[in-house]
């Protein structure tokens, strides 16, 4: 295969890649999966803490992650993301969630449900607030825990009570729970059974008689929304470790889309500035560079779109920043190659020979410089926290494509140009920078 054929082949390859990218990009509104900082939503980073009774273990973390998943699913958010980060952190992302505060409250609930008998000395107190106050003061309000929420099969929020207008939660025990519940109620007739959720007594009805059918009702709930929340957390099970909120971010949809627009504007301006500078500085060759970075921009966009569609990669604000500054890197590599070609022509080589040796010399320099940055970005990707990883990944994509473009596009277009337009003087290639033939 002649050089010319090789160049045409790789240019064809670039064209195919550009074509594929354009297919990925359209429709533009859906071209990238946007992170919640660009479309609004909620992000919570939890950290599991050791408590005197419960230590953080891998098994408990997995259980916690599972429970969070269940609760998020119950919320009905379109594209939730729940990720473990390190040994103790769980990041929950809910883009576009309608009620962030409610979601945050719901997610973080340990949801430990306990049944216990109210001790006789306190049985006369009917006000739950008073009972809870006594309990929090450390008084022996309740007997030992008789039954826990993990024996519940299902819970459902509905209206009930005497006039049927009171929010309640219906619970059904599993077989083991039903037997146990039957025993407790049989043994404690005319005592009060406290239903305790996360250390708070919600209700404490009097046991009228044995309940053998494994069904129980939580009453005394303020609103139907709260009843729904309780039902969700009971269905999803309890979180077996103490989760603290380490970082919490709530972004409104308007501000998010504004951040996106600002990012896009910054990107377009950045691209234009670089393009204008290159055209000014390298005139003839600048056009190749210009085509090069345009191809680069389309490919980057295409890859971002493809990663969003196939791997669920979301584009965040730091990711956009990474893509924008990678435009500069893409221009750098072309500058290094052109300067090298220019230099070799100054030494008296023809354009054709200068392109042949100059490209590879310049390429090796740019490759090293790209690899150095890529190395650091890999470190940042593996060690960094959530948002920063998006930035690192964006730059890695950018740098990889820069190397691809150098090899497939810059090399071939320079090579072809040298064959069809054998210019002798470097003056035609550059405007700025005095050229002395005898230097």
């Amino acid at each position, binding site marked *: 295969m002649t050089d010319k054929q090789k160049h045409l082949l790789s240019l064809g390859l670039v064209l195919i890649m550009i074509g594929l990218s354009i297919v990925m990009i359209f429709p533009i509104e859906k071209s990238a999966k946007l992170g919640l900082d660009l479309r609004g939503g909620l992000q919570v980073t939890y950290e599991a803490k050791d408590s005197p009774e419960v230590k953080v273990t891998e098994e408990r973390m997995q259980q916690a992650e599972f429970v969070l998943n269940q609760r998020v699913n119950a919320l009905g958010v379109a594209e939730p993301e729940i990720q473990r980060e390190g040994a103790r952190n769980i990041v929950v992302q809910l883009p576009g969630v309608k009620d962030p*505060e409610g979601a945050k409250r719901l997610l973080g609930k340990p949801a430990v449900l306990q049944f216990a008998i109210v001790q006789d000395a306190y049985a006369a107190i009917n006000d739950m607030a008073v009972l809870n106050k006594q309990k929090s003061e450390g008084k022996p309000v309740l007997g030992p825990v008789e039954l826990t929420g993990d024996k519940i099969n299902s819970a459902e929020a509905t209206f009930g009570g005497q006039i049927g207008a009171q929010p309640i939660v219906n619970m059904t025990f599993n077989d083991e729970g039903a037997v146990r519940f039957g025993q407790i109620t049989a043994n404690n007739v005319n005592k009060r059974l406290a239903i305790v959720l996360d250390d708070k007594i919600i209700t404490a009805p009097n046991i009228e008689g044995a309940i053998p059918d494994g069904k129980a009702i939580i009453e005394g709930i303020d609103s139907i929304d709260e009843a729904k929340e309780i039902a969700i957390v009971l269905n999803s099970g309890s979180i077996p470790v103490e989760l603290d909120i380490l970082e919490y971010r709530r972004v409104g949809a*308007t501000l998010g889309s504004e951040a996106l627009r600002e990012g896009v504007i*910054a990107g377009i*301006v950045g691209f234009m500035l670089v393009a204008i500078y290159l055209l000014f500085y390298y005139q003839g060759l600048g056009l190749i560079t210009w085509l090069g970075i345009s191809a680069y921009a389309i490919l980057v966009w295409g890859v971002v779109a493809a990663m969003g569609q196939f791997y669920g990669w979301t584009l965040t604000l730091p990711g956009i920043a990474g893509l924008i500054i990678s435009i500069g890197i893409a221009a*750098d590599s072309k500058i290094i190659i052109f300067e090298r070609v220019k230099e070799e022509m100054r030494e008296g080589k023809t354009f054709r020979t200068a392109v042949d040796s100059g490209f590879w010399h310049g390429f090796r320099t740019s490759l090293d410089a790209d690899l150095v940055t890529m190395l650091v970005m890999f470190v940042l990707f593996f060690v960094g*926290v959530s948002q920063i990883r998006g930035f690192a990944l964006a730059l890695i994509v950018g740098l990889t494509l820069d190397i691809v473009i150098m090899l497939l596009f810059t090399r071939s277009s320079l090579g072809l140009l040298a064959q069809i337009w054998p210019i002798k003087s470097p003056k035609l290639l550059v405007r700025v920078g005095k050229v002395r033939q005898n230097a």
Partner: protein
Amino acid sequence: MLKFDFIGKKNIWFGISAAIIVLSLVGMLVIGFNYSIDFKGGSSSEVRFKKAVSVEDVRSVLKEQGLGDSKIQPIENILGTDVGALSSTTKGTMMLLRTTELSTDQETAVFKALDTKFGISDRQTMTVDASWGALITERAIYAFVAALVLLLIFITVRYEFKMSVAAILALFHDIIITAGVYVLVGREVNPNMIAALITILGYSLYDTIVVFHRIKENSPNIVRTTYSAMANKSINQVLMRSINTSLTTLLPIIAILLFGGETLKDFAFALMVGTIAGTYSSIFFASPLFVVWKEAEPYYRNLKNKYGKEAIARASTS
């Protein structure tokens, strides 16, 4: 071709670097960093009101909620005003509220109160636990150390050990100066800025690699001259591309700084300072440092003794 004596005047450049580094370090010690809530714990909210409000208006509502000590400051997008229809109306309607760590209930109450009184069109809130900063710092230190070790290995393998040490020292130079400038202009240190600092590790090496690549290429052909003279010639040979690449690197960063919105500005600022410092250090710090060390090798010391005067004379006549 441009001719400039970079290596010969090394003491001047070292002096300039030393002065800026000392200034930076003094600034860090005396003024100290302005840490964001990520390191102290707390809540920070950007609130867009439906109509213009004053800081006092907002404070009076926060006071009712027991948050009278909060920092309240208006946000104005200076250049963003020309760009979009939405941004042009932000004047006086955007506020940044920094409060103590808000619980879910507190948050709901505060913004409900503000909404009833002034009308909120949108907001974003971030709440962080004080230990978040510790986590970030820990990860940042890991990343720093890992990146430096990898770079040291990479440059040693591709170039040589002395070059890699000089390059790493230049990185410290750039990072210290960037942090120093941050302190001096009073910008807030947040996780984005730290990520930018780590990015500078790779980014500011770009120029250094370009220069070192040329020195490496020229070093087998030292004929009747000194290592210094060869290195100086190398720097001159790649000077234009070094300036050009720095400019094209800076252009998109400046675009982010001007148009990219609040979050990215910190990031772009750190990158900008780091890139400028990196351009300077690759020519005026890393290269002379490497050459001084290299010329301590007996072979090159001999060359220097033999051709030193000649090389200086040639440099001054051409």
